[in-house]
């Protein structure tokens, strides 16, 4: 009996990783092209942007909120950063008289945009007490609008190579984008587990009243939480833009849903207080490998969506049953 409990506890605890491993094994048998270094690196490249997004959104979800604006922040960052690093020789630049700026300026400007949207989200949620869903729905639409206004909906092409290298270069066999993803994941892990702020995020999500009564400054922490989410989205925006070699005002559309899905599959609970970085990484990899595997197997992209949807809902049903059993 106790033995059986141990096994089922183990399965519950590591279910998400078991699913990931089973998927990898199954796909290795089903498709010879799957388990090759190049293919796996491709999966990582494709998913690193969304992965960073998911890590940021997870802060909001763990605090019992949500951030719908991250996809729009990707778009806004994309056009802002791109507009600052266009080739001077290109005649249709967004800012025709712009001097040659170092690419770091474009990166910082993009990050500032994400931080600002995040700060606005946090302030709305903390000080007007409107639900995070509504606050970030509003800023999602607004940020999307700004991206379109800035570019008139045209792409922002002809980016300078010093900028593009962020998205296209690599250190040995490992692309920079993957390295950035790993670094962001490590930082997120450290914040959530080893800092005061991280502990506060879990406490606020787990029981905001208890957190407040324990002297935690809930409002200030909310500002921080949504800024983290915004900045992560900007980082993702810069990586994706540099890789696509063009700023696009609709680049991040629907990315927020992928990010939320990945965090959710990875065991981040929408009732707050629960979520881990390894879980989120597993979530993003499951979605990525699924995309990749279904593609390799020649399954219709439309059917892929159906399968993805089922997996998201199934993951949450499993999670809730797991939590219900513990009570």
């Amino acid at each position, binding site marked *: 009996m106790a033995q059986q409990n141990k096994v089922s506890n183990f399965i519950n605890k590591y279910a998400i990783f078991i699913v990931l491993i089973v998927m990898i094994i199954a796909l290795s048998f089903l498709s010879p092209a799957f388990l090759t270094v190049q293919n796996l690196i491709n999966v990582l490249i494709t998913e690193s942007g969304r992965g960073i997004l998911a890590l940021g959104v997870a802060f909001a979800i763990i605090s019992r909120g949500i951030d719908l604006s991250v996809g729009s922040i990707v778009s806004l960052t994309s056009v802002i950063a791109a507009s600052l690093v266009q080739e001077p020789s290109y005649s249709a630049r967004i800012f025709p008289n712009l001097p040659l700026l170092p690419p770091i300026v474009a990166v910082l400007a993009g990050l500032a945009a994400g931080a600002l949207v995040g700060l606005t989200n946090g302030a709305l949620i903390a000080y007007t007490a409107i639900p995070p869903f509504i606050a970030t729905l509003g800023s999602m639409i607004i940020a999307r609008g700004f991206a379109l206004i800035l570019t008139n909906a045209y792409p922002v092409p002809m980016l300078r190579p010093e900028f593009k290298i962020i998205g296209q270069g690599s250190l040995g066999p490992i692309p920079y984008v993957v390295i950035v993803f790993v670094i962001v994941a490590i930082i997120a892990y450290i914040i959530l587990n080893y800092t005061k702020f991280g502990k506060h995020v879990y406490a606020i999500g*787990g*029981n905001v009243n208890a957190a407040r009564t324990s*002297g935690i400054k809930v409002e200030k922490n909310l500002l921080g939480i949504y800024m983290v989410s915004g900045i992560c989205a900007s980082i993702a925006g810069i990586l994706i833009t540099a890789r696509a070699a063009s700023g696009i005002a609709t680049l991040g559309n629907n990315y927020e849903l992928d990010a939320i899905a990945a965090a959710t599959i990875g065991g981040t609970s929408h009732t707050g207080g629960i979520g881990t970085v390894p879980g989120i990484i597993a979530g993003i990899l499951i979605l990525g490998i699924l995309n990749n595997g279904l593609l390799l197997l020649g399954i219709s992209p439309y059917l892929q969506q159906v399968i993805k949807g089922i997996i998201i809902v199934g993951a949450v049903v499993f999670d809730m049953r797991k939590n219900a059993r*513990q009570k």
Partner: protein
Amino acid sequence: MEEYILEMKDIVRTFPGVRALNGVDFRAKRGVVHALMGENGAGKSTLMKCLVGINPPDSGEIWLKGKKVQIQNPNEALKLGIAMIYQELNPVAERSVMENIWLGREPMLSKLPLFVDHKEMYKKTKELLENLEINIEPKVKVKELSVAKMQMIEIAKAISYNADIVIMDEPTSSLTPNEVEHLFSMIQKLKDRGVAVIYITHKMEEIFNIADEVTVLRDGNHILTKPISEMTIDSLITAMVGRYLTDMFPKMQSQIGDVKLSVRHLEVPGLLHDISFDVRKGEILGVAGLVGAGRTELMETLFGLRRKSSGEIFIDGEKVEIRSPSDAINTGIGFLTEDRRLNGIIPVLSVQMNIILANIKNYSKLKIFLDLKTMQNDCEKYKERLKIRTPSLEALIQNLSGGNQQKVLVARWLLTNPDILILDEPTRGIDVGAKAEIHTIITKLACEGKSIIMVSSEMPEILGMSDRILVMSHGQITAILDRKDANQEIIMRYAAAKTNAAIVA
């Protein structure tokens, strides 16, 4: 016709760690208002929840109109003609009066039974309300009504179910005197219709006004059932309070020192009026009063969770401004909140996280990283000291018993090393063993020189633990008694005292 419309025999109901009803008998007659009385936690509401099927009894029989019944949920109770009007009304505020009354059994169009017949609904509501002389328009949204009118609607709803037993749980707790008047005339009408009214309250003056018979419960036991004419306020109080052994409390006499905390003329509009008191070093100040007397609100104000409009707070003779819980913690105050689930524990987090919650900032190394090692050592220390029974510090707090959860919360506050510790119902809902352990912890803390403010609705706890007892009623202090001058009757009398100043805005 049978003499009793309702007979409950030998009802037993237990909750984890508590025997809430211990073989209680209860009978009600048609056309009689039967008051059900007892202290907080005596089992009044639990007994009625057994009757309407919210908490079906573990054992015992319920006989209705001469037939034995088993009621599993409030819906079945309604169908059998038993309606309960709860202390906290829960209407669908955004919908109209008539929609609320007919919720779940809306009249349908006879030709097109997919659709609601609003005309018929209006007509039936109008009839019902006129019949009861309730002057409310059926189409008004419920949220626009006063609490009193919402209650009228609930009563009308009960009548519309042809209920012949109507239970009212503390119906006057948020009514003005005029509204109480109106409620009583409604009750009179129910009585005239032959309805058995069961009226739960702990307000003395109402009982003698409205009730015909009274049943008193104490600690889940049936104490007496008598016609109200045979009772006096004194005999009722004695029945409710009974005799307790106070020497089961482990209180040790501490060295009482200088004044630590002084509160002067504290005012919170609508809640607290002219609150002044002192607490000394090493002293346990018990705070007694009925539910709704403003005790918790006072504690929340001291702790910066509520804004005072005027008044002053001094610690060690120096004036302090407490605007937030973190201010309170920094001035050396800890606050164990009343509702463990609502404001206390974070269920999905570990025991360790729950212990360090109020003290996280003190573990920051280099201002950024937390010193997990020291954190764990400290938690381990308190786990030993308070005898917290948990498989490990990593276990989720939601898997611990109520008593152990409470000890975790005590540890949380001790870790902040407060000079003043506010404990709001520190032993509510925990088993007897854990209770005694927490009492021991409290008295030891006082002996260490900490000032303790302990709010409790349990008289024996108040009397057994306190050095002095502050009694509140209607947002005001009605008495501050010395341990030696206090007994349950005296406290009860001050707790039920009407205060003259109208503080309800």
